[in-house]
């Protein structure tokens, strides 16, 4: 084994990363527009041609890919109580690398069934009830799905007591379905793996075929993962290490894209102060959140909406008209900054995305006055002691001084109850290699880890 080629079929770009296994390094990267609407192979070949121009025609022992093309993996998460099984179901979807288009709780109605159809959902995750608990609601929801015209595969991961009845209902309704372990077997206990692995295998077996991505397997080895899942694997490996090769410990990462801002944290997130107590649903070690309303291009208007009138006028006084600037980026998603001014504005918008996305990812404290003095309830992860904070994604990599925007992720006096990182060291994934390293880690985790440690630079 000498060379691997790792491919990421993104929503916009098809990105190639060539790796030399013997020297444990990246040989070259290239990208060109994804062509899933016509023939996905075209975009791949044009990207490969570019790669050959850089490094000459070399042989690859294996070519594997991940994909978020053709809308990625669109899922609906269905649960019972919003803060419990619904939240658990949502975290499973995010952990599997899906885009959670819809989140539904309690008994689902016809309008909600219709919204599942309207959103072109790829996989339905049906949860509800702890084991031995409520099964009435999840059975009702299974019946609603069974009699609907929903054709997406259904993954059942609710109260195990209901599994047999739900199998019968969905068989009767001619649905494709899979029975998994409960996402919340006991109160506040999160069980991600069973449902997540099922979702990944459905993605590989059915979804990429339905989206016209599988065609590429005529010329490459396999499409194996949704892209965000590959990134999550890479981040977890980088944090935990592998065998004799140590990891970095607790890390956070932000991937700032045109349409979404993704935040990752690899940490237990346990309380770091004496008088705080964890409450609510258990948190996964490898956590991913996705903000569909925050992005540099397609979702730039979401950034504008998050700004108050006084903030807009503040920036206006600095000579930056955020109303027209965000609109410009939304209308022209291929916009690239040209001069210093453009770069400065990109930094401002990016900083805003990062600030809000971090607020939504990190845990919060709620103060309670008790006869024993002030106590805190901690909801979510305490990430104040995060050691490393990695930036990636177009706007971060292109920035002339990424530290300015990344600083927006840090602890703020104005948000004292948010458990944001306080003194992390900033790192930059300048070659955008994380998804490729996630793929490589399936065969060579120790090499992927060493390449990441070499290629992800300190800022």
């Amino acid at each position, binding site marked *: 084994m000498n060379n691997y080629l790792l491919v990421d079929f993104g929503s916009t770009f098809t990105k190639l990363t060539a790796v030399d296994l013997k020297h444990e390094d990246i040989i070259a990267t290239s990208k060109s527009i994804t062509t899933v609407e016509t023939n996905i192979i075209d975009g791949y070949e044009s990207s490969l041609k570019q790669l050959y121009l850089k490094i000459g025609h070399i042989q690859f022992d294996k070519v594997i890919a991940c994909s978020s093309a053709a809308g990625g993996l669109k899922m609906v998460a269905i649960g*019972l109580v919003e803060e419990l*099984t619904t939240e658990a179901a949502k975290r499973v979807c995010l952990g599997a690398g899906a885009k959670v288009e819809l989140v539904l709780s309690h008994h689902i109605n016809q309008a909600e069934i219709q919204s599942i159809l309207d959103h072109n959902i790829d996989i339905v995750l049906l949860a*509800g009830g702890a084991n031995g*608990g*409520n099964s009435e609601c999840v059975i009702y929801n299974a019946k609603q799905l069974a009699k609907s015209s929903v054709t997406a595969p259904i993954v059942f991961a609710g109260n195990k007591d209901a599994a047999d009845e739900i199998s019968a209902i969905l068989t009767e309704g001619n649905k494709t379905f899979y029975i998994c372990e409960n996402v919340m077997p006991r*109160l506040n206990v999160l069980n991600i793996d069973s449902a997540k692995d099922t979702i990944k295998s459905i993605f590989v077996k059915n979804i990429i075929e339905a989206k016209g991505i599988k065609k590429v397997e005529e010329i490459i080895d396999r499409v194996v993962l949704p892209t965000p899942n590959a990134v999550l694997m890479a981040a977890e490996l980088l944090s935990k290490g592998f065998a004799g090769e140590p990891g970095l410990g607790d890390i956070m990462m932000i991937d700032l894209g045109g349409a979404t801002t993704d935040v990752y944290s690899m940490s237990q997130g346990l309380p770091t102060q004496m008088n705080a107590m964890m*409450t609510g649903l258990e948190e996964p070690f490898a956590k991913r959140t996705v903000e569909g309303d925050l992005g540099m291009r397609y979702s730039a208007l979401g950034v504008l909406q998050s700004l108050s009138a006084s903030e807009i006028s503040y920036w206006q006084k600095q000579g930056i008209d955020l109303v027209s600037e965000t609109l410009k980026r939304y209308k022209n998603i291929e916009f690239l900054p040209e001069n210093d001014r453009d770069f400065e504005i990109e930094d401002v918008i990016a900083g805003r995305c990062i600030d809000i996305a971090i607020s939504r990812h990190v845990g919060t404290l709620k103060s309670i*006055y008790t006869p024993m003095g002030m106590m805190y*309830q901690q909801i979510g992860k305490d990430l104040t002691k995060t050691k490393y904070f990695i930036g990636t994604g177009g706007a971060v990599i292109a920035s002339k001084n990424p530290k300015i925007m990344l600083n927006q992720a840090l602890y703020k006096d104005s948000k004292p109850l948010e458990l944001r990182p306080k003194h992390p060291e900033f790192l930059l994934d300048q070659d955008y290699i994380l998804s490729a390293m996630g793929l490589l880690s399936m065969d060579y985790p120790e090499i992927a880890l060493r390449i990441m440690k070499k290629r992800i630079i300190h800022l």
Partner: protein
Amino acid sequence: MKSIVIGVIGADVHAVGNRIIEYTLTREGYNVVNVGVLSSQEDFINAAIETSARLIMVSSLYGHGELDCRGMREKCEEAGLSNVLLYVGGNIVVGKQNFAEVEKRFKDMGFDRVYPPGTTIDDVLDTIKADLGD
């Protein structure tokens, strides 16, 4: 196995008695869902929905139980738990008050069983079994 939700309500951190209740009810063959200390009404109610519990046992040791428990029955109704049984016990009011009056106040708030200070979980086992039809 029947589920019973237990916990300590409000800004109250008394954990020991709650552990004893969990131990005893588990020994008696119940699926005990313990929401722990510092729990809100919503924590109890959400747990009862997901686990289909027929009984919620609220503990309060620090004297503010009356404030913390107010409106709980109405919230249960709103959450579709109109048949759930509500028990409350501990030092549920401030100071030494006539317990008959205290019991009446809590029953008016929609609690089915109200217990004075010093009641142990063993004293209540027969009532629990009768209420749950065991």
